[in-house]
């Protein structure tokens, strides 16, 4: 049984974030892999040890502050679970939350969970639009597409990015990097949502969850023709070769 924890679905659901959970869940079900999703909201106790996959979405400023305060109380357990190989996907605001701090426009540093090595600072304008990145997983690279909408600019320290920007802005519009990767943690500004169209990434996450349980097996291939076409169309529109 793969156990999934959707953190704060009530608050962090700005950009169709639940699509990531739907995609993860369905791709398990279609392969007869038992999967259970728990939705945990503000103030509810989270036992990170019992989960394989934790998802954090994005919210508005006010909602993110509420979440940040709540999650801070569980920071150490969360960090320990990450060191232990917990699979995490964090999008947009959820992604920013994993870094060390957020520097607001008036120069004030708002502390974040500090489980990964990066920081975010408020930008002048919003970075909005379609994005394509090149991601390398297990030695093979592929393209991932999505939509970004953020004003925070993220700068990585010692952690690797999720991918390199082919089109769009990515973390800050300057260094050509998008998202973050550390152990089994993936952070990204890409929504759209991210997982339904980018099935190689989704399947990779499912594989990591199984591996963590000591199950090493090839995932049964699925018919992904809709997903592939949806990706190819966006790549073509961004002037990039498909696939």
């Amino acid at each position, binding site marked *: 049984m793969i156990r999934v924890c959707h953190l704060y679905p009530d608050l962090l659901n700005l950009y*169709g974030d639940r*699509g990531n959970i739907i995609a993860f869940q369905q791709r398990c079900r279609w392969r007869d892999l038992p999967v259970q999703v728990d939705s945990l909201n503000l103030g509810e106790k989270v036992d990170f040890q019992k989960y394989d996959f934790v998802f954090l979405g994005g919210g508005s400023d006010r909602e993110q502050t509420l979440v940040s305060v709540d999650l801070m109380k569980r920071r150490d357990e969360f960090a320990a679970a990450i060191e232990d190989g917990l699979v995490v996907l964090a999008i947009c605001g959820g992604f920013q939350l994993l870094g060390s701090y957020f520097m607001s426009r008036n120069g004030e540093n708002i502390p974040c969970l500090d489980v990964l090595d990066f920081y975010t600072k408020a930008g002048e304008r*919003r970075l*909005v*639009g379609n994005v394509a990145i090149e991601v390398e997983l297990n030695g093979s690279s592929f393209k991932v597409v999505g939509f970004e909408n953020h004003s925070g600019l993220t700068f990585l320290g010692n952690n690797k990015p999720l991918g390199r920007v082919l089109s769009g802005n990515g973390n800050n519009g300057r260094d050509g990097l998008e998202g973050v990767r550390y152990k089994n943690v993936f952070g990204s500004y890409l*929504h*759209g949502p991210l997982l*339904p*169209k980018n099935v190689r990434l989704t399947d990779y996450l499912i594989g990591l969850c199984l591996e963590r349980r000591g199950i090493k097996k090839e995932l049964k291939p699925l018919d992904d023709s*809709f997903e592939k076409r949806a990706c190819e169309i966006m790549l073509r529109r961004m002037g990039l070769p498909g696939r």
Partner: protein
Amino acid sequence: MKLRLSLAILAGKLTAMVSRTYGHKGSSLPGMVARRIYPGALRDLAAQVSRGILVVSGTNGKTTTTNMIAGILSEAGYKVTSNLEGANLITGVTTSLIKDAGIGGKITCDYAVLEVDEASVPRVLKEVKPGLLILTNFFRDQLDRYWELDKITGIIREALGQQKQMNLILNADDPLVAQYQKITNFPALFYGMGPNEQSARTSSQTREGKFCPFCGNALTYEYFHYSQLGRYHCPGCDFNRPDPQVEAFDPQIEGGRASCRLVFNGQEVELAVQVQGLYNLYNAMAAFATGLQLGLDVQGVLDSLSRYQPVTGRMEVFNYKGKPAYLNLVKNPTGFNEGLASLRADRGSKDVFIAINDNDADGRDVSWLWDVDFEMLGEDHRSYNRFICCGLRGEEMAVRLKYAGVPADKVTTDENVTQAIKDTLNGSAGAAYLFSTYTALWPVQKIIKAITVEGGAAR
């Protein structure tokens, strides 16, 4: 200044004529041209409207409510100008007054009923002083443009704070709308829907406004009608659903008709409109409350509403070889969910067409499709013959349906919109439902019209 106003009106009227000749609807451009020539055009014209200006805003139902109100007033014998085509930015609003003005700069209408885009409310209120503001609801919509709903409700709060006096017509069931009476202290007439069989104890839909706008506590609900509309109260302060002066009971939605018992001022009447959908009862209630506020004859208002014809793509019905084809505009999760509710309420077999574009006016970010509860279609997929997905993001739509549990072999994509519509209408099901985002709506409607007989008379 008078000369510049005349010139602006003339240029606006000429622009409208030219753009009509070229087959455009030309509802924003004339206003834009006129404002270039004389930026005070709207202010000057609006100040002359004799009986008053009515502004309609909110996320969903603006166009329908505006059309219903314009209809009620016209049938009561008043001369009305309105931006009925839904061009609701300040340019479209200006156009509607230019249409009514003579070259000399004089306005002849008694009332102006203006649909105004939520984000344009502050700008319009700077130039136009409405006697009545009607707010329908607030849902998430085009987040790439407006970012967050909090921001929209915030700028409207600010704009209203700068108004000296006006009357409000507010949806009591939406806390995001009802808050404005408490904020402004302006006199308000509330409309709302009482508890009924369909009301739910919980809401699975992605809800807005979970928190009290005044103290930040989570609102507690007795029941929901849809999304965040329902009976709520704040456990932390005295904010709660106001008692509506116009309240609907026993809503009946069937056979292309929506009706309810309407209670107001100790009286009870039947309200009926020839369009589907619970949300259309809300629109009709907003229009009814407006009529009541303006002191119109109640029976006249009800008669006018019963004759209301849906505007393009608001569950507009066409007749194709004896079977109904419904066209519905979709632009945000709540609107789409309501459209799907109508689809499900139809117990027969259905062919479904969905066109999704991601141009600026549609919202460039299509992630909102994942906030729509297509899972309800997956549950009863047997009553659907097939789904044909079209538009710039048709593939995205196909992905969404597949993940919602609709069998993949019932889902197809087609780049050719005309062919897709023909295939939908010629499907073996008893009815066709067509959903389209904004920029695909008129092309889709044109194609349907070309291949069907308009169905108004066939009902």
